[in-house]
């Protein structure tokens, strides 16, 4: 392992659904300990990118390396090993509604037999405290929580097993601006505390500016611009300018007719 080796290295990634090409030769590097945010409009393939890295979708062509290890086409057993490095915050939190909050948070620990049930509950309560939830929440079921609290529990679950890489799928979607900012702060703090590499996808620029070290713009199935967060306003790329300023007029033409 060299120092310059990125945590995640994606090369020439292709994925099509039927005749619809979604990813068309995508390249992206995520450095160790770095927080990269991929921005892009709805339906540009941000989720497909994330799901390909997680192994939930099989790309048609290309390479995804995690710590220098190729993950495309690996066996189910190896995939389970690799996924132990990952934590994921889903857009809708995706909490298991048949389990109480603490079992949701501790699910990965229990599944990997890293802790007994009693230990796991203590860890879960500590992780819940890390995302600003009291121990009284531990016994509640997901349906009894508000949207913002569900996101927090989802975040606690994502960090419970101290992952090396955390993925955030539209972390602020569906939240009011204040709660969105609270979640952004949590993401920054929690990723720093765990020391994890972070890869997020979002179309919320306020969120992207806050949590990203580096921003990459996905358009037409490729990364058309990538650079440090501070440089995004002076990118000189008219696609990026149109997106971050939210203008309907510009080179990006939204498919109004589906």
């Amino acid at each position, binding site marked *: 392992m060299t120092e310059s080796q990125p945590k995640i290295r994606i090369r020439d990634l292709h994925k099509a659904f039927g005749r619809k090409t979604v990813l068309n030769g995508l390249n992206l590097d995520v450095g160790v300990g770095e927080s990269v945010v991929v921005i892009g409009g709805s339906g540009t393939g941000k989720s497909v990118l994330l799901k390909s890295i997680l192994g939930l979708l099989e790309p048609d062509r290309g390479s995804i390396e995690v710590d220098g290890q190729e993950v495309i086409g690996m066996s189910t057993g190896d995939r389970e*090993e690799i996924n132990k490095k990952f934590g994921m915050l889903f857009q809708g939190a995706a909490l298991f509604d048949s389990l109480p909050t603490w079992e949701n948070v501790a699910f990965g620990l229990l599944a990997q037999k890293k802790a007994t049930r009693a230990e796991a509950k203590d860890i879960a309560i500590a992780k819940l405290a890390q995302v600003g939830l009291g121990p009284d929440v531990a016994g509640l079921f997901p349906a009894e929580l508000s949207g913002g609290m569900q996101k927090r529990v989802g975040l606690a679950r994502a960090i419970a097993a101290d992952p090396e890489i955390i*993925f955030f799928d539209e972390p602020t979607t569906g939240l009011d601006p204040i709660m969105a900012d609270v979640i952004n702060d949590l993401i920054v703090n929690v990723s720093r505390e765990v020391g994890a590499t972070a890869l997020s996808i979002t179309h919320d620029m306020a969120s992207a500016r806050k949590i990203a070290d580096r921003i990459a713009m996905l358009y037409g199935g490729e990364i058309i611009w990538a650079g440090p967060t501070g440089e995004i306003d002076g990118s000189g790329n008219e696609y990026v300018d149109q997106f971050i300023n939210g203008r309907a007029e510009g080179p990006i033409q939204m498919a109004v007719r589906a």
Partner: protein
Amino acid sequence: MNFVRLTGRVSLAFLGATGRLALFAATAFSHCVRPPFYFRSIVRQMIEIGYFSLPVVGLTAIFAGMVMALQTYTGTSRFSAESAVANIVVLALTRELGPVLAGLMVAGRIGASLAAEIGTMRVTEQIDALTTLSTNPMKYLVAPRLIAGVLMFPVLVLVADIIGIFGGYLVAVYKLGFNASIYIQNTYSFMEVGDVVSGLVKAAVFGIIVTLMGCYHGYHSKGGAQGVGTATTNAVVSACILILAFDYILTEIFFAQ
């Protein structure tokens, strides 16, 4: 040409669906016999499938037994063979009515709830979440339900046999005027182990069918509430049809000489 194209498309869709189901079933079975096992889930599903289906199965069985006694009596009295009522009731219930009626009723109850539960987990990304937590959803969700189905369906059918025969006894003795002790004696002497066992084997197969259909359709549901609704319908309908089809096949295997 359109007719040929249609035939081709329908055949391809059918073969594709059969293949997907076969692969799903093979993966699911392999997870049933390979550790780790989720005993907590298995027990929870056994209670859900077995214990909570008892009222439905019991009611179905008692009415089936009562109708059977009444119909046999009115039918056989035409040629003065009323004494065969006990014989026919016990044969019909243990061989056919017990497993098939209990299977169909539980298919409606369990097939629908499995498809809806797993389908909702699919569309709310809970199944994806399982994978990211290094838990195989086939092993965690599907295998315990299959195991519980195979184990609990025979138990339910055994209960259905007993309650059904008791229903027949009630009608025969209290409505048709049979002598209670002779009826019981007839029932007992006509009952064969082979009949009961064949019914229980059928029940185990129906248990696989119902849980597999519920899990398969739920697992592959897509597109939100409507998708889950479609999955639920498909799970129940396909389970019922497969139960009737396999009932014939198994009867052919057991009893045709």
